[in-house]
């Protein structure tokens, strides 16, 4: 069940390509996945219109510009002071009523008391998502409309972390042009989660899918809190060609009572047990492969296996974004490929198995 789309909130299933500028990269990708039939935890985007309504309502634009007018990109203390002041300003204001009620309505439509993840989804097109991502906040296991509203505001404020401001200063990006959408997504009760890349990140080999996976929520993998299990899957044959099972000492799991995700020690027996079965590894690989095909370029996919969903339908995509490192490198090519009979002569003179 989801609320009707509005100026301020858009359920993932209603995000059209025309809306991409209003919902940021992360939510746009969730919208695309939802519409393509990829299993994604349901939720909605709080559009950039909501953010802008907030700025307009309280005259925050002028205030932000004033704070940032005098700082230089090298003066990290000044940046820090200005950024903090802006964050406090954003957090201290109530949202405009029509924005807040749209968010509350969209959240209510997900089910009362539904634990959700609240994630920022920035829009600046000239910012490479890969390097900018992670500079905004994600809040896990948020429960109740009041908290959701508060975390949405926190996400807006996270546009003005010291790092983000410094980055924009350095790259001469107008602060006020960068807009923020926020995704509110049903919390996954992750038994295991992680990241899948549709190429081998160390070599750029596109015939491989590399999966990092650990117990609980995937944030431990992304943040490097654990050494995850690592699986390499041959993309075309869909076969596991390498696996490294690691000691996964800690997991991030939801605590409904606390209303947050908490770190928990993993008991000795489970630590070095593979967190995915072979069948699940291949499921994750197929999901990543599908998303790569859909987006027509190598992808970096966040996924989770939901303990509350039945087997066969429990793998969820949380996010998919283009891989940026290898995709931008020009491909090395031989001067010319040998063809025809002379190529066969070359092969006989220097058979493949002897070329090392």
């Amino acid at each position: 069940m989801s609320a009707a789309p509005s100026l301020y909130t858009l359920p993932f299933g209603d995000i059209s390509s025309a809306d991409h500028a209003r919902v940021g990269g992360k939510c746009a990708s969730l919208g695309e996945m939802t519409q393509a039939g990829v299993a994604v935890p349901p939720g909605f985007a709080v559009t950039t219109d909501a953010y802008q309504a907030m700025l307009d309502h309280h005259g925050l634009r002028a205030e932000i510009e004033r704070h940032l007018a005098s700082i230089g990109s090298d003066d990290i203390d000044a940046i820090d002071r200005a950024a903090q002041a802006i964050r406090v300003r954003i957090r201290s204001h109530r949202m405009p009523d029509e924005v807040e009620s749209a968010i509350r309505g969209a959240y209510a439509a997900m089910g009362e008391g539904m634990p959700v993840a609240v994630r920022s989804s920035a829009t600046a097109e000239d910012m490479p998502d890969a390097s900018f991502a992670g500079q905004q906040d994600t809040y896990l296991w948020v429960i109740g409309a009041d908290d959701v509203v508060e975390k949405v505001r926190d996400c807006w404020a996270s546009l003005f972390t010291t790092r983000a401001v410094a980055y924009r200063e350095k790259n001469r990006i107008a602060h006020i042009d960068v807009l923020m959408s926020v995704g509110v997504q049903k919390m996954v009760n992750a038994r295991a989660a992680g990241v899948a890349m549709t190429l081998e990140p160390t070599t750029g080999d596109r015939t491989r899918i590399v999966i990092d996976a650990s117990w609980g929520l995937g944030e431990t993998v992304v943040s490097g809190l654990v050494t995850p299990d690592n699986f390499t899957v041959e993309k075309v044959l869909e076969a596991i060609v390498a696996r490294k099972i690691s000691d996964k000492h800690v997991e991030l799991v939801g605590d409904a009572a606390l209303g947050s995700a908490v770190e928990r020690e993993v008991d000795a027996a489970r630590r070095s047990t593979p967190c995915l079965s072979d069948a699940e590894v291949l499921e994750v690989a197929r999901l990543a492969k599908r998303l790569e095909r859909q987006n027509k370029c190598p992808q970096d996919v966040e996924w989770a296996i939901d303990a509350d969903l039945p087997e066969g339908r429990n793998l969820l995509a949380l996010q998919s974004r283009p891989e940026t490192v290898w995709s931008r490198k020009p491909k090395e090519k031989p001067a010319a490929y040998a063809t025809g009979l002379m190529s066969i002569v070359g092969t006989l003179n220097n058979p493949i198995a002897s070329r090392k």
Partner: protein
Amino acid sequence: MDAKTPVFPSPYDVKPPKGAEDWEGIYPYYLKFQPSRRPIEDRKFWFCDSQHWPMPFRPFDCIMVDFAAKCLGQYNTRHLLVPPANGVDYRILNGYVYFSPIAVEPSEIEARVPQFLERAGHYFGNWNDLLANWKKKVLGAIDELEAISFKELPDVVDIEWVKSGKGLDDTYDLFGAYDDAIRLCYKIWQYHFEFLNLGYAAYLDFFGFVKGQFPSIPDQAIAKMVQGVDSELFRPDDELKKLSKLAIELGVADALKTGSVDEALAAVAKLPNGAKWIAAWDGAKHPWFNFSSGNGFYSTDKYWIDHLDIPLSYIRDYVSRLESGDDIMRPTARLIAERDRITAEYREMMDEEAKAVFDQKLGLSRVVFPYVEDHNFYIEHWAIGVFWRKMRQLSALLAKLGFWREDDGMFFLTRNEVRDVLWDYSAAWGVGAELRGTDYWPGEVARRRAIVDALAAQPPLPALNNPPEVITEPFTIMLWGITSEAVKRWTGADDGDGGLQGMAGSPGIVEGVARVLRSPDQLSELKKGEILVTPVTAPSWAPVFGKIAAAVTDIGGMMSHAAIVCREYGLPAVTGTGNASSKIKTGMRLRVDGNTGSVHILG
């Protein structure tokens, strides 16, 4: 490694097993490592071809390695002038054959290129026409072989021969028949290699290109792109499946289930639809039951057509699987779709220029590769099967005359010694005197049989003398899968944790119980779901692949039979492990990883 201590022993230092001390006397001189040639022979690296000849030779059976090695060589050396490679020299040591490739002098390679381009170019350019002609030639040779018969010499020459002034006797035809059989076998072996090396060369060229594009691509993925789905090599097994389905449809399956072949067929014949099924069975026999339970290289090979109990037992097995609801037919539509999917997905990852080259090389590979698979049915199974049948008839005839006690005695003579026996017979017949061989051969055959049995007790060494730094000889790599890595595997110890390393023949991972089989006679021991572990498999083992969970072989590469069939059946296979069949015992639990080519003994 210490340069002074060879990695593998010198053939001159290898001792024969107990009871086989006199083995050298049973083979022709040119097949042995002669003591006077030690300095020359020890400079060469020899590898054992236990892929094709896993058991010691009976003296007559050397005909197959003689013809195979010579005819392989002639196409490289004399017909096509393959620039870097002549043939493979061969010797027998303790009953097993060892090969050593003959490279072309580097200074001569360049000069051979234009000749190769003209000669090989003609074949590649006219492949389908030449192949149609090849089929005609082979079928003609098979017809000629079928027409040969060996009859006891009559008491007197036929009166008509006398009256017509023929002026010849029956011994003339006896020699003619024998010489024709040998000559036709030789002819068939020449045909065998007419296209084969070129087929492999084109495939290797495609293989190298794809590897260049995707260095980590599994070999099996490349094989899948060119592999035929409707190869005639699969036909015999497909025919049995069809017969099994038909038996159920016609309601004759129960009648087939018990008794000898004759009893079962008689029971079927009595049923209303029986005649229909028997017509189908007879129809399938020719030519599809010309199928060896081995690889065609041994006089001991059993051919379905001579041992109808073999195909019947497979049919019984298929019937019971059909009755329990299994789908036994090969999913050819799915296999083709899978082949196309794999091809398209890799192709999609290439740039435009590479795609065009890929299309060209794939096109050629797909034209030439069916021969690599199909020839095996026409030559090793059908033609060679007829040859062995004729030779068995002759051996039985000579046994009847007292030259040896058992019907298979002739195979303990070399093919030229058989000519001596025919002369003994002819001369005695002509002179009106007694046979001399009947006093000599029974004891000699028994002695030689004991030697061959003793040789079989000792497995061959993988290789002799020092291997070259890098193996570059293309045919060693293509035909035997012998690479520098393989040699390292033979010399290195196992990986220490109960594991064996081989080639990733067919993808998938499976755990199960091992069944070690050393000969096709043991095939009936296999139980559903077991992991087949064996020195080497043969095409006629196809029916058991529907039963097993995975296959592990000692010998063979990506294109070995076990790998091909496992890919067909979607089963994991690890080939070329070197010694799985001796390290693994029936009943052990194994984990077979066909993605990485490893086998772990779990307990």
